């Protein structure tokens, strides 16, 4: 009897330990997708007012300067020293460890230059980098209110982590995410350094993306922003602000830069420059589809294919999907196949998005590295930007490729016509 009790006790302890360990592993390692429905925020008027006050304070400011450190859980961080002034002036020093890049906006143009040799950018190859690493600058037009400093930094890829809060907000730039806010709620007070802050949580696109803002009670400006992007795994980034100065006097010379003697203008290769060109064969792939089967591109020979690479967290993709569905409904029997391609999202998130939006055209939904390789290497989308469109003719050759989506785009119509589709005007 005593032995039996002893055995029972051991089994109970082992079972309790196992349950505890399962719980611990679940909490530490489980996909946060499990908690996603509870992350969709319901609007709280007080929190929304706080968010609007923060935005208004920045939009109405004459000038703003701050230091920002953007980091991720891998321990890497990029730092930015930012000066902004109305109507369209800016100066940004962006640095990774010892390498720094400077962006100057003189009101009309953006100038990017480097002290010493320039860093290796996303689309550099060793040869072109060697030829252009010294005494070069980039010059671009910067239309006020339509230029995103954050986007410029991201496209060149010279920092590890980009700013979460868009610096161009002061110049009137409107973040495309703003129209996708689910709700804003308060998360109570918290201190960042010596600043007393109110924390607000903003969720976008059914909590596909969540941002937390630590808003200073003193000047209504953010001191910390945390962003959680729920892709196939969560990507968490943090931006910390310090040395914040609102409406301080910034000398105009800060926003001017004259080209030193001997320097030459240089155009960095952009993501669109490296896409597959017209006439090239579209690389074949055989990947998992949204319905659990497989999709092989070569299986669409004889049809014109609009290969659309997307993810649920992109506002442009969300805008595109219903329109592509309409195209699919209209032209499916006339030789056009719309083929979605999503490797970035958690499968369940993408499936529920497709269900909710009645997307029925075939979609590759595969988060395995093979799908990522197809996107990055075969289809040359090195920055993993979306939406990316490829029009492929019935012989399997590329007709055109471009980033972005615009309803009724002339480029898309021209490419489809070129591929041989009879389009109703």
């Amino acid at each position, binding site marked *: 009897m005593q032995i039996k009790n002893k055995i029972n006790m051991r089994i109970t302890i082992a079972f309790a*330990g196992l349950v*505890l*360990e399962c*719980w*611990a*592993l*679940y*909490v*530490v*390692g489980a996909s*946060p997708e499990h*908690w996603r429905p509870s*992350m969709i925020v319901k609007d709280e008027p007080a929190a929304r007012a706080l968010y609007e006050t923060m935005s208004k304070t920045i939009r109405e400011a004459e000038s703003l300067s701050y230091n920002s450190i953007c980091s*991720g*859980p891998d321990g890497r961080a990029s730092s930015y020293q930012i000066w902004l002034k109305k109507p369209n002036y800016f100066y940004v020093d962006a640095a990774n460890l010892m390498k720094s890049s400077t962006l100057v906006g003189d009101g009309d143009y953006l100038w990017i230059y480097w002290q010493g040799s320039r860093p290796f950018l996303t689309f550099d190859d060793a040869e072109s980098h060697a030829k252009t690493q010294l005494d070069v600058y980039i010059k671009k037009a910067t239309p006020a209110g339509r230029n995103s400093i954050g986007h410029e930094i991201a496209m060149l890829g010279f920092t590890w982590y980009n700013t979460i809060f868009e610096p161009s907000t002061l110049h009137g730039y409107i973040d495309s995410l703003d129209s996708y806010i689910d709700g804003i709620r308060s*998360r109570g007070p*918290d201190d960042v350094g010596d600043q007393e802050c109110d*924390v607000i*949580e903003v969720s976008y696109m059914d909590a596909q993306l*969540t941002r*937390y803002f630590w808003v200073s009670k003193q000047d209504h400006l953010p001191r910390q922003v*945390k962003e*959680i992007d729920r892709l196939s795994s*969560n990507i*968490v980034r*943090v931006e910390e602000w310090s040395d914040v100065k609102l409406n301080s006097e910034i000398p105009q010379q800060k926003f001017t830069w004259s080209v030193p003697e001997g320097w030459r203008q240089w155009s960095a290769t952009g993501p669109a420059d490296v896409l597959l060109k017209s006439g090239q064969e579209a690389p074949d792939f055989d990947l998992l589809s949204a319905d659990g089967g497989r999709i092989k591109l070569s299986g669409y020979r004889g049809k014109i294919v609009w290969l659309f690479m997307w993810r649920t967290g992109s506002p442009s993709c969300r805008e595109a999907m219903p329109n592509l569905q309409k195209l699919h409904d209209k032209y499916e029997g006339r030789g056009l196949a719309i083929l979605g391609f999503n490797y970035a999202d958690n499968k369940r998130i993408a499936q529920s998005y497709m269900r909710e939006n009645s997307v029925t055209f075939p979609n590759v939904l595969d988060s*395995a*590295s*093979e799908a990522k*390789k197809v996107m990055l290497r075969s289809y040359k989308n090195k920055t993993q930007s979306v939406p990316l469109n490829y029009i492929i003719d019935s012989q399997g050759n590329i007709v055109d490729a471009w980033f972005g989506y615009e309803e009724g785009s002339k480029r898309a119509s021209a490419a489809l016509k070129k591929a041989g589709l009879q389009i109703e005007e």
Partner: protein
Amino acid sequence: MRAYELMKETYCRRGYIWIVHIVWLVLYGSFWWLFLPSGEEFGRFIFIWGGFFLPLALSAGIFGDDIASGRICVLVTKPFWLGELYIYRLLGLSLQGAVNFILAGCIVFVLHFLMRKGSTEDLGLWLLASWLLFNTCAALSTSLSIVVGRAYNSLLLFAVVVTGYFVVSLLMVSMRQQGGTGVLAGFIKYCWPPFELLYKFASGEYGKYSLTVGRFSVTKSVACIVHSLILMVVYSIVGIALLSRRQFSRQRD
């Protein structure tokens, strides 16, 4: 009384144990004094030196010495369960670790008070994480000591951890393109001493880079502590099983 004797034995079994404690405390103090580190820098230092190297130094030959000298044959004739021998030795080590970390904390607080410099921010959390890591490493080392002769258990564990992490890092880089890193990373993360989990727990990354607002995520932190303790228990169970098995084989001889 038996428990006290067995635990005391872990302090007195080798002369150098006191020296190790003193050297380690001097190291903590010197590091703080010379470099005036931030809370996190000091935390990282104590996490590696106290959480990983200290248990190796203290547990070297904890069973191996007795096995090599034949004293184990005397010990196993005592009228108590062999598991007790293991548990009290491990508890002795754990207690040594706790005392060491408490003293380390005191030294830093005294230095901080005297110099009015540096930072003690989140030190308590780093000390707790270091102690938890200490316990898992001590359990693993103690279990190894049963199968590895003399004091080589610590050297072996050190070599395995260092080369293991080096090889795994290389594999992770080379396998990143082919996929399949998940299983390997999961194995390292959850079956080995929880370096990564406890580091994240102490540095506040679970709060900073987690789904929750605020610096620390209480649920994840508790889960880290639970996982670390369970890992220690699992290593200990393996050790006790090995010890019991070895005893039986000796009796058969």
